C-alpha cells in the first residue's frame, strides 16, 4: 500500500534533504571524463562527467575557478572533489565542485596545450614583451625551494664564476597545490620589496609532470608576465618545457644553466678589462713611436736649407720686379718729354713773332692798342705798324671800307 500522495515540490524537497544530509555525499571525490563543458557568461562553468556506465551534471562556481590548477576541456580525465546539491525546481542533482585534479599524462597534456594556446592568444609569450637579461647584475633573486638541488646548484655556479652579484634566495613551495600561488606571490613581492633586483631566476630541479605542474599554471605565467624585473625560467631538465618557460624573458635548460646565464664570469671580465687597457698602452706607444719617426724626418739643417733657398728665390724675384719697374718708369718719362717738346713747338709756331715772319703785321693806334677794323681808323690818323724786325709810324691816307662785312 502506497503512502499518501505528496506534491512534486514536496518530493523534491525531501530528496534534497536526504541527499544533502548524507555524510558521504557532502564530501566526495569522483573520477570521470569531462564532456560538454560550457563557460557561462556569469563566470560559472557547467559540464558533465561521464564514464562507460553513466554521467553526472557538474557545477564549478566562478569563485572556485581561479583555484583550479588546470585549464579544463572536453575529454580530460579528472578527479572532482565536491558535494552533491539538488536543484529542487528542476528535480535534478549535480556535483558542486570544490577542486579538481587531473590524472594521467594524456589529460595533463591536454590542459597544458589548452592553456598554452590561450595565453599565446593573449600575447603573453610575444617576443616584443621579452626584456633583456642584464649583463652585469648587482643583485639577483632566486625563487625556488630552499632545500632542493636547484638552489645548491645555482649558488655553487654563481659563486664559482662571480664574486660581485648579490643573491637573494626567496624560498617557495615548488610542487603541490599550494606551489603556484606561492610562486606568483613571490614574484609580485620581489617586484614590490626588492625592485632593485636585476634578474629573477625561477625554477626547480627535475621531477615528474605532476611535480612540475605548478610551472604550468596560469597564475604563475601571469605573474612572470607582469614582473617588471626580467625572469629566467629554469624548470627541470633540458626536455621539460613549461608554460613558465614561454612566459619568461629567457628560458634556461636547467637551474645551473640559468646561473650561467644570469651572471658574468668576473675573473674573465677582469682579464678582458686588463687586456683592453694593455692594448691601449701598446697603441699609444706605437703612436708615440710613429711621432718620433716623423720628427726624425724633420732634420733642422735640411729645414734651414729649404728656408734659405726659399728666401733667395724670393729676393731674386723682388729684384727682377724692381728692374722691370725702373725700365717701365724710364720709358714713360721719355714718352712724356717727347710730348712736351711737341707741345712747345706747336706753341712757338703760333706766337705773333713767328706769324709776322710770314709777312703779317699788327696796326696799333696812338695809345698802342691794336686796331682790328677799319671802323676804328680816321683820315690822317697816325698809327704804328708792328712787323718782323721792328715798327714803322705811318699816316692813314685813305680809308676804303668794304660794305659786305
Amino acid at each position: 500500500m502506497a503512502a499518501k500522495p505528496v506534491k512534486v515540490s514536496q518530493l523534491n524537497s525531501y530528496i534534497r534533504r536526504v541527499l544533502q544530509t548524507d555524510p558521504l555525499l557532502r564530501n566526495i571525490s569522483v573520477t570521470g571524463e569531462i564532456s560538454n563543458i560550457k563557460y557561462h557568461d556569469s563566470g560559472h562553468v557547467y559540464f558533465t562527467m561521464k564514464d562507460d556506465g553513466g554521467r553526472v551534471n557538474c557545477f564549478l562556481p566562478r569563485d572556485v575557478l581561479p583555484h583550479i590548477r588546470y585549464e579544463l576541456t572536453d575529454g580530460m580525465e579528472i578527479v572532482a572533489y565536491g558535494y552533491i546539491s539538488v536543484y529542487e525546481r528542476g528535480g535534478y542533482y549535480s556535483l558542486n565542485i570544490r577542486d579538481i585534479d587531473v590524472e594521467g599524462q594524456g589529460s595533463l597534456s591536454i590542459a597544458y596545450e589548452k592553456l598554452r594556446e590561450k595565453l599565446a592568444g593573449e600575447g603573453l609569450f610575444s617576443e616584443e614583451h621579452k626584456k633583456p637579461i642584464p649583463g652585469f647584475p648587482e643583485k639577483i633573486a632566486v625563487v625556488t625551494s630552499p632545500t632542493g638541488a636547484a638552489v645548491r646548484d645555482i649558488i655553487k655556479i654563481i659563486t664559482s664564476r662571480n664574486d660581485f652579484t648579490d643573491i637573494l634566495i626567496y624560498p617557495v613551495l615548488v610542487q603541490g597545490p599550494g606551489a603556484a600561488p606561492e610562486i606568483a606571490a613571490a614574484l609580485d613581492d620581489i617586484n614590490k620589496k626588492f625592485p632593485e633586483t636585476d634578474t629573477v631566476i625561477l625554477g626547480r630541479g627535475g621531477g615528474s609532470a605532476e611535480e612540475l605542474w605548478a610551472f604550468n599554471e596560469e597564475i604563475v605565467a601571469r605573474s612572470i608576465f607582469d614582473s617588471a624585473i626580467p625572469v629566467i625560467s629554469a624548470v627541470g631538465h633540458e626536455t621539460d618545457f613549461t608554460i613558465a618557460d614561454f612566459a619568461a624573458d629567457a628560458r634556461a635548460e636547467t637551474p645551473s644553466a640559468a646561473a650561467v646565464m644570469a651572471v658574468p664570469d668576473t675573473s674573465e671580465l677582469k682579464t678582458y678589462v686588463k687586456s683592453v687597457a694593455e692594448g691601449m698602452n701598446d697603441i699609444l706607444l706605437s703612436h708615440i713611436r710613429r711621432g718620433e719617426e716623423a720628427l726624425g724626418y724633420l732634420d733642422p739643417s735640411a729645414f734651414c736649407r729649404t728656408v734659405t733657398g726659399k728666401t733667395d728665390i724670393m729676393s731674386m724675384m723682388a729684384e727682377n720686379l724692381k728692374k722691370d719697374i725702373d725700365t717701365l718708369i724710364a720709358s714713360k718719362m721719355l714718352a712724356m718729354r717727347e710730348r712736351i717738346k711737341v707741345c712747345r713747338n706747336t706753341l712757338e709756331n703760333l706766337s705773333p713773332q713767328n706769324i709776322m715772319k710770314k709777312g703779317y703785321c699788327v696796326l696799333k693806334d696812338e695809345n698802342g692798342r691794336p686796331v682790328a677794323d677799319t671802323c676804328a681808323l680816321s683820315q690822317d690818323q697816325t698809327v704804328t705798324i708792328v712787323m718782323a724786325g721792328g715798327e714803322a709810324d705811318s699816316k692813314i691816307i685813305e680809308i676804303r671800307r668794304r660794305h659786305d662785312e
Partner: protein
Amino acid sequence: MSKEKKLTFEEALAKLEETSENLQKDDVTLEEALKNYELGVEYYRQCSEILENARQKIETYSR
C-alpha cells in the same frame, strides 16, 4: 669629467672599449690619442674598482 657621476660597470666598460677603438683609428693625432688614452685609463680604473671591490652577499629571505 666622469668622476662626478658614478658609472655602472657596463657603462664604464662600454666607454673603455670606445676610447680604445678611438685610439686605434688611423687618422688620430697624437694629441687626440693622448686624450683618449687618459680617458681610457680613467675608465679602466673605474672598471677595476668595481670588480675589485666586489662584496657578494648571499641571503635567504624570510617572511
